[in-house]
Each structure stands twice: as C-alpha cells, then as structure tokens.
C-alpha cells in the first residue's frame, strides 16, 4: 500500500467506527481527535481493526504515532508496504 492508500484505509476504518460523522473535510496534518468526536475507546478500535484486517501490531507506546492521518501513514507505511 502507498501512503495515500493507507490514509484511505484509516478513513474507511474511522467511518466504520463512527458512521454518523462527516469525514470529508478531515485535515491530514491535524490530530484526528481534534476534528471528529472520537474518544479513546474509539481510537483503540482503529488499532484493533488494523490488527484484525492486516495483522499489524501497534504496541501501546506507539499509539501516539497514529494521531494524524499523515503521521499514521508515515508510521504504517513500512509495515503495510507489502500489502
């Protein structure tokens, strides 16, 4: 997956977690949780969904790496390149 594809995947996962939220104006360089109502439990589900779908393990200490779409793509790209 490319970084763009990774961002689209994350967006799709978020849409699944909070289906009523409008994600079309989400800025990729601002923390996701500052832009949509996503609590820490919802945030955990992004990580769980990545594990469930792609077998990617994100250790607890790295959760902050997924704060923005850009930082998520940068962090996940080496792990998802082959997918």
């Amino acid at each position: 997956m490319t970084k763009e594809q990774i961002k689209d995947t994350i967006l799709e996962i978020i849409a699944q977690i909070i289906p009523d939220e409008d994600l079309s104006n989400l800025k990729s360089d601002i923390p996701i949780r500052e832009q949509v109502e996503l609590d820490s439990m919802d945030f955990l589900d992004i990580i769980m969904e990545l594990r469930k779908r792609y077998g990617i393990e994100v250790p607890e200490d790295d959760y902050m790496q997924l704060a923005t779409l850009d930082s998520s793509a940068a962090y996940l790209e080496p792990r998802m390149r082959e997918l």
Partner: protein
Amino acid sequence: MDYDVLIIGAGMSGLAAGIRLAYYGKKVCIVEKHYRVGGLNSFYNLGGHEFDVGLHAMTNYVPKGVKLAPLPKLLRQLKLKAEDFGLCPQRMSVIKFPDKTLRFNNEFDFFVQEVVDNFPRQADNFQKLLKTIVEYDELNLYAKLISAREVVSSIISDPLLSNMIFCPLMFYGNAQENDMEFGQFAIMFKSIFCEGFARPQAGVRQILDVLVKKYKACGGELKVRCAVASLKCANGKIESILLENGEVLTVDRILSSAGYVETMKLLNGYDSSKFNCHVGQLSFVEFILILNKEPAEMGYNTTIAFYNNSDRFDYRKPDDLVDASSGVICCPNNFQFENPLSEGMIRITNLANFDLWDRLGEEEYKAQKAVCLEATLKEVVKFAPDFRDSIIFTDIFTPKTIHRFTGRINGAVYGTPNKTKTGRTHLDNLFICGTDQGFLGIVGAMLSGISMANLHVLQKV
C-alpha cells in the same frame, strides 16, 4: 492453551467483554454456573408470568444522535445499533419524602427546575453541585477516593435536599452503607438525572438476547451450567482452572465477573481473613406484584418512585428482615412503549438483612415473606394509589434467593464497597470486571466488561 481468555460469569459485563474479545479474534470462552445468562440482571417465568430480576429501568438513556455519553459509547464498542436494545423512555419518576416531592424525567432541565421550585434557597448551591459533578472525571481509574456525603453537605446546606438527591443514587447502585464514594456518586447522578431511564419492551430478555447473539456471531463460546471449582495458582499467575464437571482448562488470561471476594475464594490457599473487609453487606428484598389492570387505569403514571417516610434517610443493612421505611416502587408498564405490556405489574424493592433471612427455617421463611409484604404494602400505599385489591399474583425474592442464584456473598447485589477500579488483582493474569470493578448499573456493567477487556487484553500485544 485452551483459550486466550476465560470469562467467569455471563452477566452484562462478561458478555460485553466477550463480544469485544471475540470480535477482535481472541479465542474466548464464557463459563456461567447458572443455566441461564444474565447474572444479577436476569429473568424467569413463574405461574405463567414473566419476571425480570435486576433491571427496573436501564439508566444512562440518551436519545439517538447524542454521541459522547456512556450508552452510545458502549453501542459503538459492541458494534451494535441504538435500535438493537429497543429502549423506550420513561414517563415520569419521583423522589417522595413526607413533605417534599421531586419529579424527574429524561429532560435534565426539568429536574433542575423542580429543585429550584422546591428548594429556592438552595438554587445557587445546586448549581455549584452540578459544576462540581460535571468537572469531576469519574472515569479516571486512579482518582483519590472521597466521601460524597462530605462533598455534597459542604455545598448543599439543606440536609433534606441532600437526602433526596442521595436516595435514588444509593438505591440504584451503592455498595457502601450510609455514604458513597464521590466518583460513584457522580456516575450515578449523571446516569439517572442528567441522562435518564428507559426500558426495552421485552425487558432484560431483549438486552441479553442481543448480547448473546452478538457474542456467538463473533465466534465466542458460551458454556452454561458450567461452574468454576477452583483456580490453581503458582508463580503469581493462574496456571489452570478446574471446572466442577472435572474438566481442566489452561488459558492466557482470566476476566472474572463473579465478584472480587467470590473470585478470591476460588483460589487454592484462600485465606478468608485477608478478604473479610471487602465483603458487601447491602442486599434487598423485592416484592413483584401482578395486577389485574394497568396501574395507569388507577391514575398511576409514575415510572419509578423512590420513597422515604421520614426526613432522615438511612441506607444501611437493616436490623430487621426488611426496612420498609424507604424503598423503590417500579412500574414496568409506565414507559413510553408502542404497545402496552401484557399485564399490570408493580415491583417494590427494600433493603434487607441477609443473615436474618438466611437463619430462618423453611416454614418460617415462607411466613415471613408474607408478613414483610404486608408491612411494605402498608407503607407503599402512602406514596402510590392503594392497589392491594388488584393483586392477582405475587412473587418475592430475598437476599437468600439472590445468593442462591448469583453466588454473591450476603446476596450483596452491588458487591464490595471497595471497588477494584483498575481490575487488577495480586495475580498477573487474573482481572476483575463487573460490579466489583466499579462501573454501576446495566450500562456501567457493560462498560466495565468493555474497558477491562480493552485494558488488560486488547491493548496488550
């Protein structure tokens, strides 16, 4: 390993934890010693009538569309839709003391106005209390424990108002005698006054059905009539689990919703003296009365009434079998259902003394149930219409019944007063969820299961 996670107890918290874990691919098994799921919130049939145990009303009700509240939070976590529980909001509930009545519904502003109208001199103080509650982070698992009685009396100077606020919050979830931890107070205040009451048309059955179906659809395994006999520990961990049917299981982690002391009792080498201080004392008796008509036909439209027959409010283990001086009158018919329930019903709950009930012989036990019912009804008709001539069927459960079906020591439905908020025990792979972890009510129990599953299993790689 037989399973990644074994969950003890198929109540609200165990099932919710199970759904989370199974949904995210863990191999999970829930063992339930009763033949039916539900634990402290279950159901039964008797004499052709359907009864619920526990659930009078589900607290934390918010309408569809509200996002940042416990109920929508738990629906998202369990991948359920708001419609799945089919919750119907209450009509109107009341707190009745001899000289004052405070009404509340699911509109919080209505309750605030009731307080202002009935206690005009406390209006500013009440606003101050609301600010304190809103600013308090009750979900912080590491918060310092403070006395709610102290906090509230430092703000509200009229003890009657203070007692009237405490009455429903204590009856609906407090494990401590006379006082309450402020975090619990804030949770209960929000869940009952700021949010509100609702009930599915089919009662607790509907919620349990949804949970069990979801759990199984995610691949979870459920074994009923399957009790844990003992937990074998070594090197600070549970090594294996012996079931009463003789089977031995090995698992990576265990989440127990059986209660804190109840779980400790399963350990080999259990030393009761270490855990006595954690034993809960508060239990209840419930009188369930089937009526030959809807209570609304008698002009009674109240959903839940919290009554107390003096200005003092004592919430403690009574010196007698039952304390009829205060209690809860629940009318399951008085929710905004699409279709009326099939029968009229009134449920009355009072504090009761487990030891005294437990001591009675079979005949005397039966006789005392009838005596206590009469005494309670005499009190209750001061706060509701006299429906005694309309009763066509009665069932009564006591602290002894609760103990028999749930295994809770002393029949203490709200468990230990010392909650294990982090869920951790002295053993590395054994965690507590449900009532004794400390999120209260049905929504709270489910959130407890969810957060303990998240914290102790899913977040660990």
